[in-house]
């Protein structure tokens, strides 16, 4: 296996979700609006909202499974 693939195996799986979320927010908002500035502003907002919501859910699940 090549070195980049070996490194990819070591990385925590959650890291893959961040670029994926960035792509989803950019493409989703690009299909909503037409003006580049609006697309970028909205997608940045969408990205951070989604990150906060997912982070919150992860914290909640971590809290609920504490000492299980």
């Amino acid at each position, binding site marked *: 296996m090549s070195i980049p693939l070996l490194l990819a195996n070591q990385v925590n799986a959650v890291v893959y979700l961040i670029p994926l979320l960035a792509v989803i927010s950019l493409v989703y908002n690009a*299909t909503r609006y037409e003006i580049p500035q609006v697309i970028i502003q909205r997608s940045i907002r969408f990205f951070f909202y989604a990150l906060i919501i997912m982070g919150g859910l992860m914290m909640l699940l971590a809290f609920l499974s504490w000492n299980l």
Partner: protein
Amino acid sequence: MTDSHNHIELKNPVIAAILAFLIPGAGHLYQGRTFKAAIYCFCIMSTFFCGMALGDWKTVYYQSEPGKRNLGYFAQVGIGLPALPALIQTSRYNKSVTPAKLAHNGANAGYFDSHPSQMEIPLEAPFQGTLLDRGDDGKNVSGQLDGYIKLKTIPGEFGPEISGTFEGTLDNKPIEALNLSDPIGIGLPLGGDSQRSLECAVIREVEGRQIDTGHIEGSIPRPFLNWYEMPLTNRELDDVNKKLGKRYEFAVVFTWIAGLLNLLVIWDAFEGPAYGRGDEEEITGQDKQPTPAKT
């Protein structure tokens, strides 16, 4: 369609939608919406090919056999041309792997077929694998082989036989050419893995007779068109899951998401953006400016 779409020149929406399906962003490029074309092309293609690379290029395939059908392909095919070769590959694979052949070889046995008529002889290919043999002095010889294999058909006592040689290194040290012979097992020419299994017997001359003293086991490369987006056997799927673990699942999800995102892009090319240009609030805000009161 909202009024705001009047600002956007969609040209022929059907052509734009077809182009957007074939290559993400191509429909928007046709409409002259270059910024969005660049976003779609870069984001969707990179997600798709990252997924392919993370999954060892085995994430996109279409298995049409009942019971093995992978519905995930219908999400992946949304990306168009990059995923469409899987349909051609499935058709080629199904023609090559007949049910009779599957029954003969066993669906999960790696499709080995030692019958010489099924093989492409003469065969010359790079080979990597292992050797397990008994040397001329009677001692066991084993290690990693790396070199070149040549197989050909020769007339034998009981009909045509397969003979060949291996030239290369054993544990990175050059060795004398190994003489190879039947029985030979070789994977099918088409398969989901870029490597094709091959094993055969090693023979040595002992007291004037050719004796089977060991065997080599390894793989030869498949041409790109014989493995790219080809259906995976259960064994190949197990192997890739064992090798990559959770990363394979992430890789598959990447390709699904790329395909599904392109559905939004196709709709945007056909119908325009869902909420309009995005400057409607400003325009509405300007319209709502209080007019000077009449005196």
